[in-house]
C-alpha cells in the first residue's frame, strides 16, 4: 500500500520584482502607475516577475525524512512557505494529509515581556496546538529546554541558549504528523544542535514525516534517506541522500580544472578583494581536470587587491563530495609568512600550495576558497568553487584490488620487525 502523505504536483510561485523593493507601495506609487495600468491591461507585466519555484513535483511517504538541499536562492524557503501555507502558490497544487508543524524560525511569536510559561502557551497556540495539548506537554517542553527554574521569568531575561531551546521545544513537541524544519541548526551551539537532531530523530522514529532543510550536509546525511536538490527554482535531482549530496556538491555549474570569476563591477570600498581564478595544476604544469593521487597536486588562486590590506589570509577549504570538510589551510599559516605578509599592497597576487603525493584516496573532492582578515572581515568565500577528480591508480596498497574506505589514502611509513620473545 502506498501511503503518500504529501503529494506535490507542478507547484509554482511567481513573485513580482523591481519597482517596489520592499513589496508594499505607497499611494503615490499606485496613483502614478494607475495611468499605465489602465492603458496596458492583463498580465503583460511578465517582465517584472520571477518564478521563485516552478514545476515542482514530488511525493513524501509517511514516516519518511526528506532532505531539501540547494544553494541560497534556489527556492528552498519558498517551497517550505508554500507547503506550510504561509503563502499561496501561483500554479499547481499540493495535497497534504495531516497536521503540519512548521519550524521556520526559532522563536517566532515569542514575546519578550511574557514569561517562559506564557510564551509556551502563546507559541503553542500559534503553531496550532490546543490548550489541553499544551497542558499535557508543558512539563516535557520545560524539561527539554532546561528552564525549570525560569518558567515564570520574562523571556527577555533568558540567555540566547535558553531562548532557543524553549522555542525548539515547543515546536518539537507539537506532535504534528508532518514537521517542517528549516535551518534551525544553523543557530545555537553544538550541544543545542545535538539535542535538536536527537529530538528530530525521535520524531521520525515515531513514524511521523519530516521535511528538513539544511546547509549542514553531515546532518542531512545522518537524518534523511532521500533528498531533493533544488537549483534555481527547479528540482535538479531527487534520490537517495548519498547520491543527492554528491550531486549537489559536485554537479551543476561547479567547474573542474579551472574556475574563473567574471570581472564584476564594484568599488574598492565594497569589494576590495576580487577573485580571478582558481586552478588545479598537474605535475607537468598544465591545468588538470583529473589528477593522480601518487603525484603532488598544485592548487593556485589568483586574485586582485584593490586596496592595501592588513592581516589578509587567503585559504582553501578541502571537502569530500559528501560535504565533509577534510581540512582548511591558509597561505599565512607558516609563522614566517605570517610575519612577512602582514600587509599586502594593492595589486595582483597568486597564492599557491602543493598537496603532497600519496595523501588523497580516489574520488571527487570539492575545493572552496576564503579570503578574510581574522575576526575583522570576511572578504570572499565560496564553499564550492572547484571540484577535483583524483585517480588512485598506483596508490599505496594497489596490489590488493580492493576499495579502500575513507577520503584519505596516505602513504605512511611502516616499520616491520620481528620481536624476540623475552
Amino acid at each position: 500500500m502506498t501511503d503518500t502523505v504529501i503529494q506535490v504536483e507542478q507547484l509554482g510561485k511567481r513573485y513580482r520584482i523591481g519597482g517596489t523593493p520592499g513589496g508594499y507601495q505607497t499611494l503615490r506609487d499606485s496613483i502614478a502607475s494607475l495611468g499605465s495600468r489602465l492603458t496596458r491591461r492583463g498580465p503583460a507585466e511578465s517582465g517584472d516577475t520571477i518564478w521563485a519555484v516552478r514545476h515542482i513535483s514530488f511525493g513524501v511517504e509517511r514516516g519518511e525524512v526528506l532532505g531539501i538541499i540547494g544553494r541560497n536562492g534556489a527556492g528552498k524557503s519558498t517551497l517550505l512557505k508554500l507547503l506550510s501555507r504561509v503563502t499561496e502558490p501561483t500554479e499547481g497544487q499540493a495535497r497534504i494529509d495531516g497536521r503540519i508543524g512548521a519550524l521556520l524560525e526559532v522563536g517566532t511569536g515569542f514575546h519578550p515581556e511574557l514569561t517562559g510559561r506564557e510564551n509556551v502557551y502563546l507559541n503553542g497556540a500559534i503553531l496550532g496546538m490546543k490548550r489541553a495539548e499544551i497542558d499535557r506537554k508543558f512539563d516535557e517542553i520545560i524539561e527539554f529546554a532546561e528552564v525549570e527554574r525560569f518558567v515564570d521569568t520574562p523571556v527577555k531575561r533568558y540567555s540566547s541558549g535558553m531562548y532557543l531551546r524553549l522555542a525548539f521545544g515547543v515546536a518539537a513537541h507539537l506532535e504534528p504528523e508532518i514537521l517542517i524544519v528549516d535551518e534551525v541548526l544553523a543557530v545555537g551551539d553544538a550541544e543545542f544542535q545535538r539535542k535538536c537532531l536527537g529530538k528530530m530523530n525521535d520524531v521520525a522514529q515515531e513514524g511521523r514525516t519530516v521535511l528538513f532543510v539544511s546547509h549542514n550536509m553531515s546532518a542531512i546525511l545522518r537524518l534523511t534517506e532521500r533528498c531533493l536538490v533544488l537549483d534555481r527554482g527547479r528540482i535538479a535531482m531527487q534520490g537517495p541522500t548519498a547520491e543527492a549530496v554528491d550531486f549537489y556538491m559536485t554537479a551543476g555549474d561547479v567547474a573542474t580544472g579551472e574556475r574563473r570569476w567574471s570581472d564584476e563591477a564594484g568599488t574598492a570600498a565594497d569589494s576590495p578583494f576580487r577573485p580571478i581564478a582558481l586552478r588545479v595544476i598537474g605535475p607537468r604544469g598544465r591545468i588538470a581536470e583529473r589528477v593522480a593521487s601518487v603525484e603532488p597536486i598544485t592548487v593556485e588562486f589568483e586574485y586582485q587587491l584593490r586596496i592595501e590590506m592588513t592581516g589578509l589570509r587567503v585559504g582553501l577549504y578541502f571537502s569530500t563530495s559528501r560535504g565533509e570538510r577534510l581540512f582548511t589551510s591558509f597561505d599565512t599559516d607558516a609563522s614566517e609568512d605570517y610575519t612577512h605578509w602582514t600587509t599586502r599592497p594593492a595589486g595582483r597576487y597568486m597564492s599557491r600550495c602543493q598537496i603532497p603525493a600519496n595523501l588523497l584516496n580516489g574520488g571527487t573532492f570539492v575545493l572552496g576558497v576564503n579570503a578574510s582578515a581574522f575576526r575583522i572581515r570576511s572578504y570572499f568565500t565560496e564553499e564550492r568553487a572547484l571540484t577535483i577528480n583524483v585517480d588512485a591508480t598506483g596508490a599505496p596498497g594497489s596490489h590488493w584490488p580492493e576499495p579502500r574506505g575513507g577520503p584519505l589514502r596516505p602513504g605512511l611509513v611502516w616499520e616491520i620487525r620481528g620481536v624476540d620473545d623475552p
Partner: protein
Amino acid sequence: MKESTPRTAVSILAAPTIWIRPTRGWGFANLRELWRNRELIYFFIWRDVKVRYKQTLLGAGWAILKPSLGMVIFTVVFAGLADLSTDGVPPPVFYFSGLLPWVLFQDGVTKAGNSLVASSNLITKVYFPRMAIPVALVIAGLVDFVLSFVVLLGMVAFYQMPVTPAASLLPLFVGLAILAAMGVGLWLAALNVYYRDVGYVMPFMLQAWLYASPVVYSTTMIPSGIAGVLYGLNPMAGAVQGFRWAVTGVGAPPIEMLLSSLLVGLFLLVSGVLVFRRMERVFADIV
C-alpha cells in the same frame, strides 16, 4: 529504501487533508477555520491585555484614565467655555458615557489597522487565519471598556440617575461599536499592508470621525427625518447616542438613525471581511 524505516501504526483517519492550490476571486471568511482557531484568538486577546498592562506603570489604570482625561477636557471646553447643551445630563456623565463606546471603537480601529504590519514577522513565518489578529485586538478593547464601565456606573450612582428600560439595550449599542470597529479595522488592516499611508491617515481620520459622532454634542441637535438617516450613515452615531441614552435615559436616538447606523455597520463588517479575504493570500509576500 523504505524498508529500513521503522513504522508505528498511526491512525490515518484523524488526519485532515489539506489542499494547497491558488485561489481566485472573492470568497467569504472561512468562519469554520476561524472558529477552530478560537483558542488562538483568545491567546491573542490575552497577550494584548497582558503585555499592555505589564509594560506600563499604571497598567489597567490607563483604561480608566484615558476616557477620564477626555471627559475633563470636554467638560471644561465644551460644557464650560462653549456652553454646549448636554440635554440636562450632568456634563461629566454626558461626556464619559459618550467617550466609552468611542474609545472602544477608536482603539479597536487603531490597533486592528496596524496589526498586520506589526505582526509581519509572524505572518511571514507561520500559517494561521490572519483574521485572528485584528479580530482579537478589537475584542481585547472590551477589557478596558468593562473597567471604565464600572467607573461610569459609579458616576451614575453618584448623580443618583434613575435606571430606565433603555438600559436593556446596552449590549446592542456596545455590539454596534464592536461591529463598526471590526469592519473598519479589517479594511484598514488589509489596506495598510499595501499602502503604509494608511498608518499616517488613521489618526486624522479618527479625529474627524470623533467630531462626526455625537460624543461632545447630542443628536437632539440634528433634525429628524432624512437628516437623521444621513447622519446615521456614521455607524458610531447610533452607537454613541444609543449608549448614552441607555445609560442616562436621556436623548433617545431616532429609530431611522439607529437603523441606518446598524445597516452601515453590518455593511462595513461584511465588506471588510471580503476585502480582507481577497487581500489575505498575498499578505506574506508583500508585508
